[in-house]
């Protein structure tokens, strides 16, 4: 039971990470398409401004919890995905620094360099997380020694690539919506138009990904065994439909929230599908990393649960406060603000 609780928490932490940092990645990826002037670019940086760093910590926590609650999975997963994870890391390094450094030297070349870092540093993680999680949902060729027999190219299979494209579109929509929430005037309009179009791309890739999941993965088995879980699928559909509905009503913050729900439920759809594995093996299910063969001791799981039960709601509470306090529309005054990005 303790292991199962941690499995669900593990999934939720990754899902929250994608729902939050996802829009930061989307903002970066959308920048070449939506920003026409220096001020436009600055609006994009500043709508993520107060939040991106706090969003990123969900990754550190999700990674840390994988380590703490399922050290076996952490070890096998991270070493199996060595090359993509390091690429991801390099991308995140440049993305993070771009926010702080971009305006520190008054030169067009300097700014262009950091814009490039932010765009690539947003696109690559979106793509790589998508590829990685699709492969987790499908399983990787783990042998009896729990060593991955595949390589980078094995990860770039059709389903893995579909996952990558799915994340890129999902996050692009998510970022577009956040921009519509916080930008004004022409930028807001552009962001809304972008999101309206991107929504169709998301709809198409979500449907395609779900169909491909039937072909490439065993995710459905858990849903057949436990049809109640199908409500997750229902939430994905509801989230998507409502995103469009609110977009058309131009209530962007609600559309953004629905897009966040879509990302959350899509991630959980895959994670609930692989239970009780955290990293299935395509060679033999017996070689999979599961809650049984990779969990920490009962004592560690209990202590960690105590920490999580107290602190995760606390984090959600103070981060919500920050969102409420700082999600206003960006004005010219905000761009003149000395500390603005």
């Amino acid at each position, binding site marked *: 039971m303790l292991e199962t609780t941690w499995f669900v928490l593990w999934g939720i932490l990754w899902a929250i990470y994608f729902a939050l940092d996802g829009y930061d990645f989307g903002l970066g990826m959308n920048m070449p398409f939506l920003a026409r002037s220096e001020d436009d670019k600055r609006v994009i940086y500043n709508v993520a401004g107060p939040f991106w760093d*706090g969003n990123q910590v969900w990754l550190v926590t999700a990674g840390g919890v994988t380590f703490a609650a399922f050290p076996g999975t952490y070890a096998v997963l991270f*070493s199996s995905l060595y090359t993509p994870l390091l690429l991801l890391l390099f991308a995140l390094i440049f993305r993070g620094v771009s926010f*702080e450094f971009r305006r520190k030297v008054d030169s067009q070349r300097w700014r262009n360099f950091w814009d490039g870092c932010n765009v690539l540093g947003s696109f690559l993680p979106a793509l790589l997380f998508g590829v990685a999680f699709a492969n987790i949902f499908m399983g990787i060729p783990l042998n009896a020694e729990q060593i991955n027999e595949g390589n980078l190219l094995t990860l770039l299979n059709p389903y893995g690539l579909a996952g990558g494209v799915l994340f890129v579109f999902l996050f692009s929509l998510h970022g577009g919506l956040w921009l519509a929430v916080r930008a004004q005037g022409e930028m807001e309009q552009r962001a809304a138009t972008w999101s309206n179009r991107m929504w169709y791309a998301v709809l198409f890739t979500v449907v395609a990904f779900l169909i491909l999941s039937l072909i490439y993965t065993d995710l459905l088995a858990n849903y057949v065994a436990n049809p109640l879980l199908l409500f997750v699928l229902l939430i994905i559909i509801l989230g998507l439909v409502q995103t469009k509905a609110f977009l058309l009503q131009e209530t962007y913050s609600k559309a953004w929230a629905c897009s966040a729900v879509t990302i959350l439920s899509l991630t959980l759809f895959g994670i609930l599908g692989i239970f009780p594995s955290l990293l299935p093996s395509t060679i033999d299910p017996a070689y999979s990393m599961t809650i049984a063969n990779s969990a920490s001791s009962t*004592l560690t799981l209990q*202590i960690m649960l105590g920490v999580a039960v107290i602190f995760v709601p606390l984090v959600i509470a103070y981060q919500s406060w920050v969102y409420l306090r700082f999600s206003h529309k960006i004005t010219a005054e905000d761009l003149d603000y000395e500390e603005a990005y």
Partner: protein
Amino acid sequence: MDIVSLSRLQFAMTTCVHFIFVPLTLGLSLLVAYMETKYVRTKDEIYRQMTKFWGKLFLINFALGVVTGIALEFQFGTNWSAYSMYVGDIFGSLLAIEATVAFFLESTFLGVWIFGWNRLSPRMHNASIWLVALAANLSAFWIIMANGWMQNPVGYIFGQGRAELESFTALIRNEFAWHQFIHTLSASFVLSGFFVLGISAYHLLRRQNMNFFRKSFRLAAPFTLVFAILVLVQGHTHGSNVAKHQPEKMAAMDSHWETQTWAPQYLFVIPDPANERNRVEFLPIPGGLSLLAHHSFDAEVTGLRDFPEQDRPPVMVTFLSFRTMVGLGVLFPLLAAWAWIRRKDPSRSPCLLKVLPWIIPLPYIAIQLGWIVAELGRQPWIVYGMMRTSDAVSPGVSSGQVTGSLIGFTLIYALLAGLCIFLLTKYARQGPKDPALSRA
């Protein structure tokens, strides 16, 4: 190179670079928070400008600290998966607690602080930077409890082919880890203090923004002195604690080969590890090493020869790093005392003002050397006495992969560290924004 050496080199390089940025974050966050408190209390505009100026340097440095930190968390899994599997039950939980309890607080409220000058009451705004400062130091606590466990594993039992947690309280009451924590924190505060003193001295010497930098100087001087004394005094007890828990490391730190009572402390030594002796030993303090290690002149100090060769740390690097660190550690209280004596009007001592900017790199070097002693001196163990570093690497990763990532890290870190130093220098030289302050 083999996979173990490559992975070690990568971890060493990425940790060292990470720890260029961490100490300034730990200390400067407190100083900036204190400056803002002064502003909130006195409403004196100069403290607001001080908060902004030193805060800007803090933020440039902070960005690099964060991104290089994530690289370390990932590497335990990517490069040291055998280690992660073996000790994750204990080590992983400390890292996860760090993220949940401290790092969230630090990162979230940093955003609040950066964007909140006009959106929060002065008190609330000041509270946000205090939260950042406390969370940063709390972060350090959890990370060092994790490292301290690698140095002196406690509170565990062996079960299911791995180390499992037996007592969480033993983990966070680990005496060795507490020594490390206090040592690291006070060293970081010394570094931050000299950072503020050095930059202030640079401007005072050029008679720029005199009032502004005189106040900064005066604020940093006692802070630096207190922790420079603490790090030295406490460093001594930390050293004898090392002797108690890791006698091989202690012997390597002093290049001490022969087990003996009344072990002398030589002021000048040239080690000769190949022949298991010292080439030169000069100026002995009789019983000095015995006293330092075990608080008594006639205590027996075990020499390196009495440890099996495969359990000895690399002597030369450990020894040189330790000696140089101690040398610098003795210098810092003297310099800090000089600055403290002149705190009211440092401009009256141009000599002091000329010296201090050049001191800025020294605490950085001392801290790096300290970690080299701690980590290299623990070899060949990744967890002291429990697991060897050579058994800890990821079995499924090839040396080609690690070579690639090592090259990637080296290029990226060289670029970013270079840019960071460039920006820090640029903004430090530029001084505060408001020209009105320079008249004072």
